[in-house]
């Protein structure tokens, strides 16, 4: 065999994978967003009626879409900010002094990460249970009224954020801790020699040098939280009412409860475009200038 074909041959599996599992579904959903799915004629795009922008018009005229969008944005902004603050503090504490317990502490902190999201959601659903949940058991034993974490519209989003924070703060901690470890000792020592105190070292040395890890952590978590589905399904089913329904859950309802596949595809594309723009802005703001990165 001619040697010049070998690289192409080696690339073939990943090319096939990309075409079949990424490019084809993307194109399929892009066309589907302008079609009306009919259960009788099946999944062939050629048999589906083209409806132009009707799916998008329907979505933009649906109150449930705006409620889902608002819920998603609220959970995302509050959740990711809280996780960033917590993870930063934990990473700083772990980095302060490395002892024989640091590894154990890190392992324990990372434990929630290994749990499947649905299992976490179901576990927390039991913990939150108003009558039999451990959390309400503690609250009641302290003499307070039990709290309706998942049935009160004013509390339900906070409850979801709590679960999300519990599970995903460790990931951010890991990224930031690795970032802290990569800062050269010489820079820290030089700042001390120059008379910088702890606060100015943190503000002018540590945080600027952590811009890459922070950016990576934020990008991972924002894209993840944007498509939050598992916790909503396991904890609340989008209720009470629509008060915890996220965009992904809305897509699920449209796609798999109502089988309005065209509308579900159009919401997916709206979601993709929004998150793409958000990520671009974030990269623009946080990306270190040339020469700043390690």
């Amino acid at each position, binding site marked *: 065999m001619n040697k010049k074909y070998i690289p192409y041959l080696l690339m073939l599996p990943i090319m096939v994978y990309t075409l079949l599992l990424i490019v084809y579904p993307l194109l399929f959903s892009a066309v589907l967003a302008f079609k009306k799915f009919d*259960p009788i004629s099946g999944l062939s795009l050629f048999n589906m009626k083209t409806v132009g922008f009707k799916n998008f018009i329907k979505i933009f005229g649906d109150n449930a879409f705006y409620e889902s969008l608002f819920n998603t944005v609220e959970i995302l902004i509050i959740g990711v900010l809280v996780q960033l603050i917590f993870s930063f503090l934990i990473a700083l504490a772990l980095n302060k002094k490395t002892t024989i317990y640091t590894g154990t502490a890190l392992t324990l902190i990372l434990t929630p990460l290994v749990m499947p999201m649905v299992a976490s959601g179901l576990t927390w659903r039991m913990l939150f249970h108003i009558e039999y949940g451990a959390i309400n058991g503690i609250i009641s034993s302290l003499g307070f009224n039990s709290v309706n974490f998942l049935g009160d519209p004013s509390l339900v989003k906070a409850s979801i954020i709590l679960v999300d924070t519990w599970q995903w703060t460790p990931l951010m901690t890991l990224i930031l801790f690795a970032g802290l470890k990569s800062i050269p000792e010489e820079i820290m020592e030089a700042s001390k020699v120059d008379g910088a105190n702890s606060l100015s070292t943190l503000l002018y040395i540590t945080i600027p040098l952590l811009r890459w890890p922070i950016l990576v952590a934020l990008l991972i978590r924002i894209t993840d939280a944007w498509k939050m589905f598992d916790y909503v399904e396991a904890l609340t089913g989008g209720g*009470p009412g629509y008060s915890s329904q996220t965009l992904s859950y809305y897509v699920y309802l449209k796609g*798999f409860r109502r089988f309005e596949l065209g509308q579900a595809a159009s919401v997916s594309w709206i979601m993709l475009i929004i998150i793409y723009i958000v990520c671009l802005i974030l990269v623009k703001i946080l990306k270190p200038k040339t020469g700043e990165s390690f």
Partner: protein
Amino acid sequence: MKIFILKLFLPSILMISLNLGNTLMADSHEVHVVFQTGGDVLVAREFKDRFEKETKIKLSIEEIPGGNLYEKLVTEFITKSGAYDLVEFYPTWLGGFAEAGYLEPLDDLFEKYSSEIDPDDYLEGVQNAATVWKGKRYGIPYDGDVLIFYYRKDLFENKQYKKEFKNTYGYELMAPDTWDQVLDMAVFFDGREKGLKGIAMVSMRLWWAVGYWSSVYYAYGGRYIDENTGDIVLNRDAWNKANSVWLQMIKHAPKGVLNFGYTESKESIGSGKVAMGIQWATTVFVDPRQSSAHDKLGFAMMPGVKKADGSIYRAPPLPVGKVLAIPKSSSNKEKAFKFGTLLSSKEAQIWATVSGTGVDPNRRSVFEDSTVKGAWKDMISVYRSSLEIGVADIRVPNSAKYYDIISGELHSVWSGTKSSNDAFVDTLEEWKDL
């Protein structure tokens, strides 16, 4: 180089061949049946060995959680993979599935095996009618669900409570006939004993929670869709009255009732933590293994509304229920039919009832059986009467969409995030849009 390429791809080729082989082997002699997780599948499991031994047909049983049943079935029907031979689902979906051509008409098979099946033994009424769409039979009746009213007999017969109630409300404390009386009693019993609440009912954001709420809505004359014309017949007055009653009931229900599914509601009634409850008629509540309040519970037909002539109009809903059907794409239709009719036989229904599976009978002969009478105790007459006058779920095509919309809107009302009237308007608009 050739050897290198062979090494690279050989494992994949072997894996694919093995998988293909397994799939073909499995398809050639297995009947694949699909049930909802929970008590429903127990009947299938119980009769599996016997069926396999007698017919030499191998069965494989798959369980799907109820919440995912619709999406799994529709996905299978659309892709026409032929993976399922017998499926269990709710009658509310039958019209849509039949209309889309997903199901095999069963009239010929029913006729062929008529003497073994004895179709005349099925109770007349909606449960049986639920297997028929536009004159053709597509389903085998399986689980006969109907909602009835539960109350704590010991509390309702307590002399002190009877006296206090009469002094306060001016009428006798007894199983309620109307929804107004239910509200009085819920207020009366809420907190009267330590940990006691007024009433429990399923109020989660679920499609079949709408069936529970329909106990009140139907009684006030409300209906959803005219099956003959397909017209939406939502009734604003009945809607608002039903929501007003439901919101009052929520106030006297256990905390967290907005997250009550079947399990939570069953637990509240079965453990006697509530004075009253709405739930499916089931032997679960008279079974000491499953209900600690089994000897304290009384059963009544669903309350209604007093008419001008003094009579009570009751309309107990028949939410959920189950039918068995055969997908058109199945290649083992007759074999699957045989297993389906075995599960719907008198023998299977007696076993299901006595074993407390929650799968309830719909054959006349089963109601006459002494072991079933013993298992159902006082509940049997209430169950049968309710079954005969019950109101069916929405059955027109798109029923899942109708329920998805209305369940979200009603839950917004119950959680206080939307007014009843606004929810009515939004539901009507969205329904019309379908």
